[in-house]
């Protein structure tokens, strides 16, 4: 039986002390342990950025691809082996900047993958440029006079793309984040857990204190119904995207792999890929 320990390795992350990503790493490890998964049955696919290094910091199969493309790689992994628990992870630049297109399409394609975004509204690894979630007016290296572009709302985009599971966490609350990640993994289909994961070095605006002050837990709304898409849309708008907790889940949505014609329970990787002579000849005959 696997526990959180099995998902820890001896690699020291190259994140700055105090980085929000440590809490995300811990939450992923706990969630995987709590779900009693074996490390060899988990694949973590990440992109580029500080947070992209996370695939090396969890004891599982890890793939660190190119910038913005964790989701296409993760979907490929799932196609080859539907028995694996596949996580994709990266930052807001990786997922909502260069990789935004893949995110929307992954959401609507709905493969059974859990996507964890460490959102700090800044480009950290390249040392402090503004990101797609940086607020209007935000000052960074590339916005010395303040950001003249508007921040996108990953949550609204996710809902608009037809996502089946949407949650938002905060690095300050590891137990909530662990639960959200667990729920995302359990969800049959594509799930996004967007995590406010402060950059302590380059973002002096969206700090732990700032998030503590501005985020609103959905538990404060006893009537909130996360199965209601319209309510989710409204709540995300009302809270300016700063609500935390389970925002939306559609349990009836069928994941991609259960809808593929002729797809087998046995993963592709375990199937005999030789075709028999009879099938070969018959298929060739169609060209005569």
């Amino acid at each position: 039986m696997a526990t959180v320990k099995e998902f820890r390795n001896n690699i020291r992350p190259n994140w700055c002390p105090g980085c929000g990503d440590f809490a995300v790493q811990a939450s992923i490890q706990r969630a995987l342990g709590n779900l009693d998964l074996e490390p060899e049955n988990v694949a973590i696919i990440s992109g580029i950025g500080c947070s992209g290094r996370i695939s090396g910091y969890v004891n599982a199969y890890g793939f660190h691809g190119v910038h913005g493309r964790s989701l296409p790689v993760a979907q490929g992994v799932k196609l080859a082996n539907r028995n694996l628990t596949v996580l994709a992870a990266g930052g807001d630049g990786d997922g909502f900047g260069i990789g935004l297109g893949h995110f929307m399409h992954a959401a609507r394609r709905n493969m059974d993958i859990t996507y964890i975004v460490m959102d700090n509204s800044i480009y950290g690894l390249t040392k402090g440029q503004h990101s797609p979630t940086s607020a209007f007016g935000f000052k960074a290296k590339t916005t010395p006079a303040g950001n003249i572009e508007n921040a996108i709302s990953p949550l609204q985009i996710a809902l608009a793309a037809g996502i089946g599971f949407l949650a938002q966490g905060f690095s300050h609350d590891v137990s909530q984040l662990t639960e959200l990640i667990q729920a995302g993994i359990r969800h049959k289909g594509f799930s996004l857990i967007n995590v406010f994961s402060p950059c302590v070095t380059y973002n002096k605006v969206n700090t732990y204190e700032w998030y503590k002050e501005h985020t609103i837990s959905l538990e404060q709304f006893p009537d909130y119904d996360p199965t209601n898409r319209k309510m989710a849309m409204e709540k995300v708008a009302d809270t300016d995207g700063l609500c935390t907790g389970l925002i939306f889940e559609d349990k009836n949505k069928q994941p991609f792999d259960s809808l593929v014609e002729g797809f087998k329970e046995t993963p592709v990787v375990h199937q005999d890929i030789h075709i028999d002579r009879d099938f070969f000849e018959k298929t060739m005959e169609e060209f005569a």
Partner: protein
Amino acid sequence: MLQELSWKVGGQQGEGIDSTGKTFSTSLNRMGYYIYSYRHFSSRIKGGHTNDNVRVTTEPKSASADYLDILVAFDQETIDLNGGELRDGGIVIADAKFNPNLPDTLSSNVKLVVMPFTKIAEEHGAVIMKNMVALGATARLVGLEANFCASVLQSRFGRKSQKIVDQNLEAVKAGYDTMSNEQIDFSAFKLAPTTPDKHLFMIGNDAIGFGALAAGARVMPAYPITPASDVMEYLIKKLPKVGGVVVQTEDEIAALNMTIGASYAGARALTATSGPGLALMMEALGLAGMTETPVVIIDTQRGGPSTGLPTKHEQSDMYAVLFGNHGEIGKIVLTPSTPEESFYATVDAFNYAEKYQCPVIIMTDLALSLASQSVRPFNYDAVTIDRGRLATQEQLDQVPTGQMFKRYERTEDGISPRVFPGQRGGLHHVTGVEHSEIGRPDEGKKNHVLMMNKRLNKFNGTELPNSVSYTGDKNPDILLIGVGSSIGAIDEGTERLRKQGLKVGHVQIKVLSPFPINTLTSYVNSAKQTMVIESNGTGQLFHLIQFFGLTHPEMKSYLKYDGTPFLPKEIEAHVKGSMIAWQR
């Protein structure tokens, strides 16, 4: 009597020109004739001129004919655009509906036969059958039976209804009978008989799709693009029968990254694209090289640059395929010449990809991808599957607890054992960052050099089997060098020149990487002069040959980049001209 027939049908896109050509060519293929059929089409669905040029021979040919014998026209534009291709004594058969006329520019010896295709079709039930009437007229002219296309019509419409089959056959017969009344010397157009023999009839893209199926490919992420889409359209029909899947991705970047993910997780995976998509795949191509992930990429070249000529022929991606990615990776590039070679090259590609743990690109060109050709049946027993070096569970069990599996172990031949996620004891990391043997980022000087050498030296001195083919004279006065679909036109040109007493050799390059320098050198050194023949504007192959170290004092370049493939007569005339100039 005609030893071979060159027939073309033309009209507006969307009025059944394709299916007319296909019915004609498939029927003759079933009778044992060899077919080479090349379509002219545009990037639009309805409207615009389209035609299908069908060459019928009693021996295999892999090029269009130099001239037309018969042109079937459904509009005046077809005559105006294609009439010039008719040989002396050729015939235009045209629908009376548009009051056809022959432009003054045509040879006075070209005959116009006007027939009421549309009217006859209407009388038999539907205007759409005017194509069938034209087929009947053609059949009579070239001495085929009126029911020559019965089996093809049966397979096409039989499942819908027998009535449709019968109606179409009646329309064919009506066209046949009407032609009988024409005052023509039918014996001059009678097609020589052939020996009944079984061939397949397919486009290069079909051969690649079928090859991938046979090779065990089970995942194909791809984005639609001309002229590559047929590969995914074929596999979307076939992969569900074997538990596989095709995913139409949001773009080519996703397509190759998803292919990489699937291969990393143990599936045989491929994607297919053309120039613009290939450009978008370059970063992922580097990732596949860096992470030593086997992937197969089909690049069906079309006219460039940019959107270029999406439906026209060109061979201008050679530089992009070989040098397009940033940084340096090893890769294998296969350039088959025919559908038959494309099938086996695809099977090989998956084996090479897993043996060498690298990307393999199968580079075709539009003529190879889309021309329909007669093909010898493929050999089931020649299809082998070699998954390369995989770690066994016993090896994995020996990995000490708490340590990672050395996925990038430095071995003598540079090839390390692979494991797939899900395997116990195989945990390791994969990254596009320079890495250690267990896949951890390691940017140290020593490590980078060792790992670069590991990845690049896998191919040292390797020359893949069948990297080139050779026909013609030994020690020739001129050696013609080509790549891709031009094999048929160059071969025919070569044969004609040899019959005229010239000593000509022809080498066709089937592998661009690793470049078959040794084999090619011996051929080139044996020739007095050489000519590199290719469909692009800068002489990419001409320069590549020299880039890879081959020199010859008399190396000439023959380029064509008007969007159409070489014809045998063009090769013949150009080479002859060059020889005369050289001998002076």
